[in-house]
């Protein structure tokens, strides 16, 4: 009797597996993807740049200053703060901005770069430190996760390294 029940259960499970297989492209795949997307995950800050701390409105575009991103224990790389200029399509040909990175009400760096008309063109820019907490960077491009200036999608992303001992 037990063997019969197990056998029936086995075949039912096998048939269900087949049913699941047929539902994969139509229901299951998309359902799992949707559930996963709504589960509240975030990308690692070293890739995404973290969360936006504050937004500075300008004429036709905005500057998003992000929370500082610090490396994990044993993780290589410098801490950095990301600044995004959005939307890239609305930016003037030349950007020269003084930006308060730490939210203390005083500008910390002066950022300057040319906005190329071709989105594929590699970018170079300068970051001049306005206090001794930051380093002055000349000719920064897409050099590393923490020293970065490039167009990504419809925004221009700049990452400025923070002092390690902060």
């Amino acid at each position, binding site marked *: 009797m037990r063997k019969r029940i197990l056998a029936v259960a086995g075949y039912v499970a096998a048939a269900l597996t087949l049913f699941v297989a047929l539902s994969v492209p139509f229901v299951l795949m998309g359902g799992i993807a949707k559930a996963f997307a709504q589960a509240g995950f975030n990308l690692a800050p070293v890739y995404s740049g973290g969360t936006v701390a504050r937004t500075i409105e300008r004429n036709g575009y905005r500057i998003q200053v992000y929370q500082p991103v610090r490396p994990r*224990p044993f993780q290589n790389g410098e801490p950095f703060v990301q600044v995004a200029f959005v939307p890239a399509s609305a930016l003037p040909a030349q950007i020269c901005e003084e930006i308060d990175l730490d939210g203390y009400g005083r500008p910390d760096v002066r950022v300057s770069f040319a906005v190329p008309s071709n989105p594929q063109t590699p970018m170079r820019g300068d970051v001049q430190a306005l206090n001794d907490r930051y380093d002055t960077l000349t000719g920064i491009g897409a050099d590393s996760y923490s020293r970065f200036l490039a167009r990504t999608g419809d925004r221009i992303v700049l990452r400025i390294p923070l002092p390690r*001992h902060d």
Partner: protein
Amino acid sequence: MTILPFTMAAGEALALGFATGPVCVATCGPVVVPWMLAQSEGVRRHGLQLGLFMTARLTGYLLFGAAVWLAGAAIPRAWTGRSWLLGAVQVLLAVSLAAYATGWPRRRPKCAQRPEPLVQIGEPMRGKARSALALGFLTGINICPPFLVAGVRAVQLDSLSASLLFFALFFVGTAVWFLPLLSLGLLRRTPAVVTVARAAALLLACWYGFSGVLVLIERVIYG
């Protein structure tokens, strides 16, 4: 330097430890998990081993707490020597893990008249205790960001004993997150499980060694 009322600091220590506990478990995981998996099964035995590991880790925390308080705020803020210690700790961790994974050094007969090494991995129980203490201490002095934040708070306390108590409470906050590791004692130990654990420990030893040597080389080259 502000002097914090200790009651506030105690709550802060526990909260900070609890908040950063997952980071501590994740950081210590590569050391603890293969080491525990390579031992015989049994929740009680694992509890004892984990207890020894945590005791040694606490010792590391308290030593750091004492050093931080005695040296003042200079250490956490601008201590560029931190990477020297990080590199050295990683290399030592690598050596300890590799020794544990390979069972080196082997026990010598009593008549050999040689002193026993600091870390003896494998059977019998005494050897396991040494490995627990060595690995626990080395992870305890691994200076990671939550540790440094705790250090910054600790120097604001008015006595050495308060700083030590702060670190002890910080430790308790993190230790709660290690309790689920006791469930590793329930996993059935077959030769395959132990072989996998030891092989993983050896791989991780290679990683820590590589990482530690890189850090030290960077310090030598860039200062």
